[in-house]
């Protein structure tokens, strides 16, 4: 049930974007860049679900492993998105990356991109840095909030190939998943510290 809903929430916007008449006026690289962006948003939805243990059939260990792999896939999607747009119109991409773009959604996307890169870099060095779970979460969760909000606002403000309703549903799902998992984590921590206090 959850898997089916997840497949629909990600699959429908991708499928509807694939039928967009805008595609007729775009080159293949631009099309690829656009879809990489949609996929990236879909991956941002999957990430909290994995870590929150919401997806049935996956053990906590497996979920965490997949979370790492999806993190890597997210980096790849973002790189394809940015590189493809750069190739399509270098001055527009340079404007976006230097925060001097006329489009209001660009800074949200660029900030989310840097937050994604930061999480990936820290995750790859977590063991070397000797970060404990608590410290790691204190770093990762704020960055995750930046990624989720940045990605959602970026996507909602864009007028492109995505169909409006399916886009809004995907964005709402991304927000809801992130909020649910973070609230759950926070509750668990509250319960644990209460238990400790009682002992």
């Amino acid at each position: 049930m959850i898997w089916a809903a997840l497949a629909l929430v990600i699959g429908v916007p991708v499928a509807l974007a694939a039928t967009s008449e805008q595609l007729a006026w775009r080159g293949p690289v631009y099309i690829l860049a656009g879809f990489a962006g949609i996929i990236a948003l879909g991956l941002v939805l999957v990430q909290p679900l994995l870590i929150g243990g919401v997806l049935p059939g996956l053990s906590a260990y497996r979920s965490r492993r997949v979370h790492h792999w999806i993190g890597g896939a997210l980096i790849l999607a973002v790189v394809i998105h940015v590189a493809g747009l750069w190739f399509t119109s270098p001055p527009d991409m340079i404007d976006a990356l230097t925060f001097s773009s006329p489009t209001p959604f660009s800074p949200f996307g660029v900030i989310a991109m840097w937050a994604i890169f930061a999480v990936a870099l820290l995750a790859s060095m977590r063991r070397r840095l000797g970060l404990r779970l608590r410290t790691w979460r204190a770093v990762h969760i704020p960055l995750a909030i930046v990624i989720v909000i940045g990605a959602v606002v970026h996507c909602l403000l864009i007028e492109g190939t995505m169909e409006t309703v399916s886009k809004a549903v995907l964005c709402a799902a991304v927000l809801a998943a992130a909020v649910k998992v973070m609230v759950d984590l926070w509750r668990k921590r509250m319960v644990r510290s209460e238990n400790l206090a009682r002992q």
Partner: protein
Amino acid sequence: MSLVVLNRRNLLISGGAVLASGVLAAGTSSLLLPARAEGLAPTESMTGGANNYRKGAPIVERIGKGGFWMSGTVRRAGDGAPLAGQRIQIWAHTVEGQEHEPQSHGATLTDKDGAFRLEMPQIIPIFGQPHGHLAYDSGEFKTVFLRPIMRSAKDASLEAHFVLQPA
């Protein structure tokens, strides 16, 4: 004088630029720009306006097969006098080509009332916004690049207005 509709997006993105572009009455501009209270303020170039600019686009009857109208006015800063015979270059990502491609570019001249109007292919959303590009870059006045945004991607026309100051 034609008015450009101010919607939320315009206001949010380029409120300053739109106001300064002189599309509002001179009185309003002078209220907002007290430093130039003595007359019509010159149009500032918009952010990203010069992107994919190709200098020296030829003067054409029509860009490509047409179907979409780009129009506007060119006036002189200060007294607001219409400027005739000014060359305005226009380009956009359209159904017939990308922004940087030569066939997407063309130029036209203003008439005796300082108005210009050029038919071009339908503009489509690119980089998340349906927008066009216009340039005044002929030397006599200061160069100005505009990047007006369409209220809807389905619009079949777009306006942009120039108020130029001596170079």
